[in-house]
Structures are given as C-alpha cells and as structure tokens.
C-alpha cells in the first residue's frame, strides 16, 4: 500500500474555518460547564454570540475571497465554497445572531438553564453550515442530521407536554425524511457511481438520461426528503404541531434557518434536473409549488391560534420561494435569497412579538397561549406593541413598502421574465388570500374591544416577557422591515453577483 501523499495546501483547510467556529464554541461551552456548573444563562448567550460574530467575520473573509478568486474547493474537494454557500451561511449566522439574544428573557425558562442548550444550538449551526457548503450527498446528509438531531433536542428541552409531542413528531418525520434522502442518494450513486451533485449531473447529461426510470425514483425520494424538511404539502403535517409545541422564538428560528439550508441543497440538486428538459419533473415541481402555496394559505385562514396561523403562513412562504427553484434562472435564484433575507427579518420579528407576550401559565379563559382573542383591542392597552405587530403582519402580507414586498415583487418578476405567466398570477392571487389571515390579526388588535383581563392588567400581558435585549431585537427587525427599500439595492447586487458567479 503506497502512502497517501496529500499536500496541506490542496486541502485548503481554511475553507473549513467558518463551520468549525461554532463547533469549537459548542465544545468550549461544554468545557466551561465541566469546570463550574450553575453559571447564568447570560454567560452562555454571550459566548454563543461571540462565536457567531467570529463566524460572521470569517464569512465576510470568504466572501471577499470568493469575489476575487471564484469558487473554492477544499478538503479532498468535499467542501465547496461558492456564492450559494456564502450567502446562505450569512443568512444562517445572521438569523442565529438575532435568535440567540431572544434567550435573554426576564422569565426563567427550562431550556435556557442548561448550558447544553447553547452547545446544541452551536452544533446545529455548524451542521447547517456544512450542509450548504458542499455538493457531496454524504456530507449533506451528515450536516442535515447533525443539525436536525440538535434541533429535536432543543424543542424537547422546552419542557411542556406539547413540546415533547412536537419533538417526537419532528424526530419521527425527520427520520423518515433521512431514510428517503439516503435512498435517493443511493439510487443516484447506483446510476452514476458518484455522490457529488456536479458529477451526477455530468454523468447523467453524458448518457442523456438513459435510465430515466431510475432517475425518476431517485428524484421522487429526494423530493420527498426535502418535502419533509421544507414542509412542502403533502409532507407538511408536522409543521403546525411542532411550531405550536416549541417556544415562539424557536418556532420563528425553525421557519427560517433549516429552510434556507434545505433550499440551497434543493437548488443544487434540482437545478440541473430542471434544465435537463425532462418535462414531468417540471410538472411535479410545479404542482408541489402551487399546492403548497395555496393549500397552506387556505388552512391558515381557519386557524384560531396566531402561532399555528404563522406556521401555515410559513409553509405558504416556503412554497412561494420553492417557485424560484422551479423557475431556475439567475434572477429567480437571486430572488430566493433576497426573499429569504427579508423574510427572516419580518418573520423573526413577528415570532418575537409572540415570544414577548409569552405567559408562564395558561390562564383559564384562553384556549391556547397565542389565541386571536388574546390580542383583541391591543391598540387600546399597548399601542406601540400593536403597531409593531401590525407592521410585521402587513409586511408578511406583502404590502409595500415593507420588507417582504420587495422579495415578492422580484420573485413574481422572475416568473414573468421566464414566461411563467400563470405561475406569476397564482403567486399574486395567493398573496391576496394570505392578506386575509394577516388582516385577521390586525382586525383583532385594532378593531375589537379589549377583554376585561387585558384592561385590568393594563396591557402588561403583551410585553410580560420583554427585556431590553428582546426589545432591541424587535426594534431592529421593525426598522429593517420599514426601511428595507434602502437595503434592497445593495442586497440585490450582492446576491445577484454571487449567484451568477456560482453558475446558477
């Protein structure tokens, strides 16, 4: 056996630095915990915060490397640092920075008293970063599972009956999805002898999709796997229950970060398949996209809990964004990232508003923790909170000039540009349907009379869980939502150049 001869430079280990940072951070938190137990959560929050900032800084570095030298491969060509990887890591780390500050609540919650929560959190981020920065199906799988297992545990740590249910449900569905994914990957490996997406694409293109039946099987398995992860209809059933069971902050986080990671992998996987000219694939994806958008919207109409409503709404948004992968042009792929950046601001903001109104114990007159009734007449008792909540709802509905409108507009424009006229109209009309349930909350807040309880508590119930850091995050999200029109141009230019230079 000849010795393996690999030069350290060709490994390009520096490419790993952003992903390794949160993992080092997680290990450090565990070590700190070993030495002294019973430290306050604020220490762990700040440690996580610091590591995420370092992570963000390293990402800035790799972004500048990318804009000069183009796509970077490393570690036996397993790691792939292209534009998609960098933008999605920015979103992942940025949203995590916003999320982790939400742990600084005045009320004590079970999960935050464990340092393991923060370690798991950082492991999860590392997992997602690995997942987006590769086109190796095995590494994608490893990253996905690392992140998902950590996430299941974090949900369960919320320590409510419903959160155990949610965690187990999510775990079971996730295990099924993992099975589907590995089976799909196996089919592709059997077909092409490779587990790297670009190799698979090259081989399939070279033999002109000779074994179309097997490709179909592989695609269906992969699509089902990502259907679970991205909560596409009909694989969405876990979503509302899981969101309801987890804390509002974590639910908001789940609606953003795992999905962007999923979208990037789906983009890598489906990009070449869409452009292969196989019609049925396009049809399948078209149907999934339209049904996800529409059905989720209709379900959201009949919810009587705000968190469940937002869960269905985020399914609908995911369907909307999935359309970008169906369209598959540079404009649509850039629109996906633009949309998701703006969405993460708005959606984290609205879930944080639920989070600060979190009650420790459910009062007897409420059916669920965030029922619509709870918010009736909020403008009378706490006008500022009501206005901010309304702002997030209007932004989610796509009302200009608030953040999400620009994403919607650019996305619909990309559909128009590529000739998907009917899809563009469906997207537009779905936004109108969605308007109704976002409006429902505004109607409750602004047009109904407040309940006796909220008058007697003088609106305290809506901000009972607020602290300065939470208010800062919400203020940040609100300012970002209102003044998005200033930020759209730089984001758009940045995203477009990165997506274009990655060849998507």
């Amino acid at each position: 056996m000849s010795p393996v001869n690999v030069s350290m430079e060709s490994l390009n280990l520096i490419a790993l630095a952003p992903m390794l940072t949160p993992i080092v951070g997680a290990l450090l938190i565990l070590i700190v915990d070993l030495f002294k137990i019973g430290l306050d959560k604020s220490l762990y929050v700040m440690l996580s915060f610091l590591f995420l900032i370092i992570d963000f800084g390293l990402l800035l570095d790799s972004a500048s490397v990318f804009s000069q030298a183009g796509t970077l491969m490393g570690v036996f060509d397993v790691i792939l640092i292209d534009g998609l990887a960098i933008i999605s890591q920015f979103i992942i780390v940025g949203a995590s920075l916003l999320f982790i500050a939400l742990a600084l609540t005045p009320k004590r919650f079970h999960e935050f008293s464990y340092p393991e929560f923060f370690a798991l959190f950082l492991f999860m981020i590392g997992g997602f970063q690995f997942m987006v920065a590769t086109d190796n199906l095995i590494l994608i799988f490893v990253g996905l599972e690392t992140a998902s297992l950590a996430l299941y545990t974090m949900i369960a740590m919320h320590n409510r009956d419903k959160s155990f249910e949610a965690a187990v449900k999510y775990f079971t569905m996730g295990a099924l999805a993992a099975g589907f994914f590995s089976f799909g990957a196996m089919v592709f490996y059997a077909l092409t002898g490779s587990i790297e997406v670009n190799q698979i694409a090259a081989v399939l293109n070279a033999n002109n999709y000779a074994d179309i039946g097997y490709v179909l099987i592989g695609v269906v398995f992969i699509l089902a796997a990502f259907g679970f992860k991205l909560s596409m209809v009909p694989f969405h059933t876990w979503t509302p229950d899981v969101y309801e069971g987890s804390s509002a902050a974590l639910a908001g986080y789940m609606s953003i970060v795992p999905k962007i990671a999923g979208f990037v992998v789906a983009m890598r996987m489906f990009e070449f398949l869409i452009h292969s000219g196989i019609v049925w694939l396009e049809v399948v994806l078209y149907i999934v996209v339209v049904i996800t958008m529409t059905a989720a919207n209709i379900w959201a109409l009949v919810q009587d809990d705000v968190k469940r409503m937002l869960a269905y709404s985020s399914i609908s948004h995911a369907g909307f964004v999935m359309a970008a992968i169906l369209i598959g042009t540079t404009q649509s792929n850039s629109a996906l990232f633009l949309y998701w950046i703006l969405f993460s601001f708005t959606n984290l903001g609205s879930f944080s508003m639920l989070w600060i109104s979190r009650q420790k114990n459910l009062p007897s007159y409420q059916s669920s923790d965030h029922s619509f009734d709870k918010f009736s007449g909020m403008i009378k008792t706490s006008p500022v909170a009501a206005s901010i909540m309304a702002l997030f709802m209007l932004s989610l509905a796509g009302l200009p000039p608030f953040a999400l409108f620009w994403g919607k507009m650019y996305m619909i424009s990309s559909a128009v540009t590529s000739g998907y006229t009917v899809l563009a109209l469906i997207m537009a009309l779905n936004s109108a349907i969605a308007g109704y349930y976002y409006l429902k909350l505004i109607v409750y807040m602004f047009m109904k009379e407040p309940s006796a309880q909220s008058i007697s508590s003088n609106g305290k119930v809506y901000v009972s869980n607020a602290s300065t850091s939470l208010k800062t995050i919400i203020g940040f999200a609100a300012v970002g939502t209102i003044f998005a029109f200033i930020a759209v141009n730089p984001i758009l230019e940045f995203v477009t150049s990165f997506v274009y230079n990655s060849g998507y």
Partner: protein
Amino acid sequence: MLDHILSILIFFPAVAAIFGFAIQKDSVRAYGTAVAAIEFALSLLLWYSFDSNVSGMQFMEQVALIPAFGINYILGIDGISLFIIVLASFFTMIGIASLSDTKDEKNLIITLLFLQMTMVGVFAALDAIVFYVFWELSLVPMLYIIGAWGGPLRIYASVKFFLYTFAGSLVMLVGILFMAYFYYQATGTWSFAILEWYRLILPESFQMWLFLAFFLGFAIKVPMFPFHTWLPYAHGQAPTIGSVILAAILLKMGTYAFIRFSLPLFPDASVAYMFPIAVIAIIMIIYTAMVAYAQKDIKQVVAYSSVSHMGVIILGTFALNVEGITGSIFLMIAHGVVSGALFLLVGVIYDRRHTKLMSEFGGLASVMPRYATIFGIMLMASVGLPLTINFVGEFLSLLGFYKQSHILTLLAGTAIIVGAIYMLAAYKKMFFGEVTKEENKNLPDVNKRELVALIPLTIITVWLGIYPKPILEPINNSVESVVQLMHDKAITEEAKSRIPNLVKGVEITKTSAKEVH
C-alpha cells in the same frame, strides 16, 4: 425649496403624524388642523408656481431607489394631477377641522395625516413601483378608519374593502412587472419610469392583455360595475370623514390611473375596449341610479349616486379625445367637491339624530333652513344643473363621447335625468312636508364648525360652475399632450382614426382660416 416641493407635500403630513403621537389628547385636533392647513397652503403654493402653459411634467424629482432593478423615486405633476393634489389637501384640512367629536380622536387624526401622505404620493408618483407603493399603502389607514370608527358591520366592510382592492392591485402588479419586462426586452435596461414607458410601442396583442391586468386593479378602485359591491358597504359603515375622503379622493385614484397608465401606454387596446367599457359605464350609471332610488338610507343614496357619477367620468375618459378626457378630469374634481360635501351633509344630520333613514325625517326645511339651503345647492350640483361645477364636467365628458357614439351618449344623458329623479325624491322626503317626528322639531341648524367645511365647498361649487377656466386651461394643455401621444403611438388604423391628431387639427384650422381670408 420648490425643487423638492412634491416630496415635502408627500412627507410633511407623515412626519407631522409621527410627531403627533407626542401631542396631548385634547389638543390634537388643533394640531391636525394646523398641519393640514400648512399642507393646503403648500399645495396652493404649488398651484401658484405651476406654469399652466407647459403641458409636460413639472417639479420633477428623481432619486435612485433600487437602480439594479430600475426602480427610482420619481415625482412630477402636470395639469392632470395638480388639482387632485390640491383637492386632497383641501379635503383633509376641512375634514379634520369639521370633525365631530369621536372616541380616540388622536388616533383618527394621526391616521388621516398618514392617509394624506399616501394620497398625495399616488398622484405625484411617476414611477410605477412608487405609485404602487402609495396606492397599496393608502388601503391601511382607510382600513383602520372604517374598521375602528365605523358602524355595526364595520369589520366586514373594512376587510372587504381591503381584500377587494388588494387582490385587484396584485394583478396590476403582475401587469407592471410585465410592462417593465417588455421595456427591458426592448431597451436592455430595467425601468419602471412611466415617462420612459410612454416611449414604448407595444404590439396590439400584448396591449390587450396588459390593459386587462391594469384594468382589474383600476376598475375595482373606481369602482366599476360589477366590481362595485364593496363600495356601498364601505360607505354605509364608514364614519363621515372616511366616506368623505373615500368619495372625494380615493376613488379618483382609479380614474386618474386610467388616464396616467392605460390610455397612453395602450392606445390601441384602449380603442379596442372603448365600447365594452362604455357599455359597462352606462350600465353603471343607469343601474346604480336605479338602485339609489330604491334606498331607504340617505347615505346609501349618496353612495350609489357617487358610483353613478363615476360612470360618467369613465365614459369621458374613454372618449379618447381632448374634450372627453378634460371633462372627465374636471368631473373628478367636481365629483370630489360635490359628493364630499354631500357626505359631510349626511354626517351633519347623523350627528344630530343618529339615524340615516329618510323615513325618520321630513319637513327639515322649516327646522334647519340653512342646512336645507346648502343641501339643496349641493343636490342641484349633483344632478348637474348648469352653472354648477358638475355641469361643466358632465357636459364636456358627454360631448367628448358624442364624437365616438351618438346612441351611447344619448343613453348616458338620459341616465343623468334618472339621477335627478332619485336625488329630488330624496330631498323631498327629507326636507319638505310637515315635520312628522317629534324629535325633529328642535334640531339645531348647522353650527360654525360644520360651516367651516360647507361654506368653502358651496363657494367652489358655484364659482367653478360659472368660471371653470382657471382649472380647465391647465388640464386641457396636459390632456392635449396625452392625446397627441396616444395618436402618435397608435398602431392600428382604427385607433388612428378614433384618437384625434391634434397637430393635424391645428394645420386644418390654419388652412381653413386662410380660405376664409
């Protein structure tokens, strides 16, 4: 300062509204009146410095917003939009000044100031996306006004208003994006600037589809039959101030947008759809007039009559010649003044009796003589009596359409007579005869606060009815350039012949003048 007067006009009320949060509750009305008065003074300054001999855009401003996608913040006005802006600031001012005591007055006034920002923004925007932003944003304050201060069905009415308009606008957004894409295909750059779109000549088939996409958004806003069903609810439930602003300004966004977008962008489609739209307009005039006659509630009568008159505006717009379009723009202003005043008058009686049913009244002329007089003048204006403001607009609109079709114009003219019937019948029920109800015997006549709003409106109604020239002339100049643009852009023979060529027209008069000599 005049370089940025449009931006100031748009954002001054919004900034003032934000400061308004800090004002103590009892003093907020004075604050609101002061802000609206400053705004109105600024709009008069705009009118004063407006050069009415120039037909193109004036006071242009441009700031890059999203240059990567061709979206710029472009403002500018011409004779078409100038007077609607003045009207908007005028109505906000008298609306706030004459506001009757309501709950949560502070929230209402702040909302009205935000609404004013969006209203001025819509009429000053020259970029389709900026236009769309203000167009959509105007829904939110109105939603709140109807939903929070309205009648018993207010939530249903406000949500219906919002969703109806929102759905239509989203289809329009798709149309806007298509238009930008066609511009991109033709020139290689993205642009949403309306003035640049004007230079684009589209194939007829594209025009037909895009016209429909824009039409849906505008028609719901106007509202045109059969999309008018939200309006009676909105008017029926809205508080007085809401109805006044809705009827006087917000509905005009739709008709204004037809002139700003549909006609110059799609001249061939406009000609092709001229008769279907004219038929819809006439159905709208006759049908809503008949519905108005059947109403028991005076506010519903005014609401349906308002829809009926919007039909005349549409008819004038789709005459596609200078007389018709000038008339329709003048009628927009006239309709704003008259229906705004009528809604204010209905509000006056509602404040006193808390009912709007006509059967509850009768013989009010002897109890409230001043009220009856002003109501009478406004009613005469509404039915289009000569020497009132509505007459000028209706006459020009019908004259314009007479050149396109005699029979349809005749039908529309007859319908206006139906208008006279229901209005006079309503007036008779309310004001003449014996005072039958005990509660009506001691009703106080209009007070000073109400007169603040009503007297200026009455003066405008009569003054512009007798001497419309100061307004007609700038409108006419701008409309001429629009019509000429349409003629130049038209592709089909049909369109070329339907839309008059003004340049040639001038030549003909010159030659005929020579012949005379």
